[in-house]
């Protein structure tokens, strides 16, 4: 049946090799390394199996605990705010207006740019002591704020950097909104539902699959945020923006504690997995699928 097996394998080999080399191998290696005392400068053969001691150490580590807490705060603030903001913009961009496609494109642009290091650098300048925002505050007659130097505001700037990249969630919301039949809005109009009731009783329930999808995507991404704290704040001040991915990076490539960094990676991986699993389980209480998942009675 598969007479061209060799040729077929040759064609898919770039992908398979890439997958094995850059994904599967690091994935498994990090799991293995998390149970060793391997340091970056060591040879593989010098690594010793240390059992779960990296994990035990991690749970007692004050820096790790603070970083975990910061990460949770970051995710808890970022994801709902971003979803709400993306939904709001999508809702507005769903109106039939002249030139609406221009606005849709314009609002999507930050998402293309937003994740890049360059934008993070821009962000650093915008929030700097003599940056754009403080200049504007001065002009408006307000006192300036030490955005990046104050532990109480530094995390906020990192959160805003992520909120600004609402475009991809917005596009998905927009597609979801456009999938809601116009008839239903007309029926709601005839039923006498005003804008708020139409949104809360018709639009939002029908949009829950999309909300769910975006929630998962955004949560997973938020847990992995690295560029913002690395470039804009460097994790400071006083580790107030020291998210787990940054800690993993520093443990591995600054302190060379690859074994320890691997353990934190795996902790983060399991944490994301558990939260995603809980979200999937919760679906039946709040997500409505128009297509049939259960059998009709």
């Amino acid at each position, binding site marked *: 049946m598969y007479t061209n097996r060799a040729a077929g394998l040759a064609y898919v080999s770039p992908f398979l090799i890439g997958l094995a080399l850059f994904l599967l191998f690091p994935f498994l290696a990090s799991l293995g390394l998390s149970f060793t005392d391997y340091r970056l400068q060591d040879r593989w053969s010098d690594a010793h199996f240390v059992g779960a001691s990296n994990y035990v150490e991690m749970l007692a580590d004050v820096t790790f605990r603070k970083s975990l807490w910061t990460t949770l705060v970051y995710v808890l603030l970022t994801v709902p705010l971003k979803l709400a903001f993306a939904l709001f913009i999508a809702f507005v961009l769903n109106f039939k207006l002249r030139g609406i496609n221009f606005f849709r494109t314009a609002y999507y642009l930050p998402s293309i740019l937003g994740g890049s290091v360059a934008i993070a650098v821009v962000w650093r300048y915008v929030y700097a002591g003599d940056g754009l925002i403080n200049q504007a505050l001065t002009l408006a007659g307000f006192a300036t704020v030490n955005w990046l130097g104050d532990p109480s505001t530094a995390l906020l700037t990192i959160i805003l950097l992520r909120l600004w990249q609402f475009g991809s969630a917005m596009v998905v919301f927009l597609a979801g909104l456009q999938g809601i*039949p116009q*008839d*239903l809005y*007309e*029926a*709601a*109009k*005839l*039923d*006498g*539902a005003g804008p708020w*009731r139409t949104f809360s*009783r*018709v639009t939002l*329930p*029908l949009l829950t699959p999309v909300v769910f999808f975006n929630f998962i995507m955004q949560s997973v991404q938020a847990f992995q945020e690295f560029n913002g704290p690395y470039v804009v704040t460097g994790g400071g001040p006083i580790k107030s923006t020291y998210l787990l991915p940054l800690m993993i990076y520093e443990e591995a490539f600054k302190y060379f504690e690859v074994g320890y960094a691997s353990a934190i990676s795996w902790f983060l991986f399991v944490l994301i997995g558990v939260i995603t699993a809980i979200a999937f389980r919760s679906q039946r209480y709040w997500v*409505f699928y*128009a*297509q*049939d998942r259960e059998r*009709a*009675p």
Partner: protein
Amino acid sequence: MASSVELKAVEKRFGTFEAVKAVSLAIEPGEFAVFVGPSGCGKSTLLRLIAGLEAPSKGSIHIGERDVTHVHPSQRGIAMVFQSYALYPHMSVAQNMAFGLEIRGMKREEIRAKVARAADILQLTELLDRKPRALSGGQRQRAAIGRAIVREPEVFLLDEPLSNLDAALRGQVRVELARLHARLGATMIYVTHDQVEAMTLAGKIVVMNGGRVEQVGAPLELYHRPANVFVAGFLGSPRMNFLEGSVKSVHARQVVVALASGPVLLSRDGAGLVVGERVTLGVRPEDFRVLSDGSLQRSVSGGAIGGAIEGRLVLAERLGAETLVHVGLDTTVLDTRSEAPVIVKIAGDLPAGAPGARLRLAIDPEKCHLFDSRGAAHRETAATEATAKLPVSA
């Protein structure tokens, strides 16, 4: 409570496109009115104007005594059944029905009672807790009607409500709708492109074409006295046959029309007709009779023969109780509207009709429709109308 609906010179433009052109129309309280016409004729737009889902570019809309032109859809005392049913998919049947009442601030017990009563009328009681996706097409349709009924509207608006049902169910629901109308006594306005639905359901048919009302009247009135070629061709299945010709002579009770195949005598008052004028002769498929010719023996039972046309048998569609005979005319100029054959409907079967067999078709002088060159029906004077145009049984 049933209300009248009146449209006064209503126009609707979408950009440069005129969807509805100066429509004036009165629908009596409790009447079952059907807007019928081909797609794009403006019938759905007209319904949406009455519902308030579109605002007229000109003119006014009245429901009962009220001018509702600028009244919000929910305040017009109407309920609408959408072609797609537009049931809220995340709500149960009961919630769908209750939604509008909740918004009005009605008490819970009252809502429950109204929903139960409507469900009872529509045999939906067993299905009240189901979501729309767990319903069959017919059940969804009933749920959509139920949502309309609980609102106790003055006017029901139905937008092609049967078009998503299969043929067998459509016939059944059609009967149910007629019964429902009789039971509720409400004014109903029903949009369809299906002339059978229009004929069977309507108390009053409004035939529309190109944004205009072509004719308004009772179903049989439109069937027997179409105002123009469009209405004549639209109502009736198969459609009326049109034969081109010219007026040859005009007498007090007789008109002779020259067709390419020869003269046809019509028993009608020729007032207003001019000799030599181009006219279109309209003959319904059931008003032809197949004459004896060679092997084709059909008894000519009663009725005078005004004239005859000849052609070859193209196709016989045998429906059991009746047969649709397609006859290709010898002179194609006869039917310049299209090259389509003349269709004849006869009771029973066509004996031994092989394709190619020659047929003669007799035209009954009493049962012809005559249209002028602009397509308007030639009307007889009132005195002769009464006797000449009543449906005659052959």
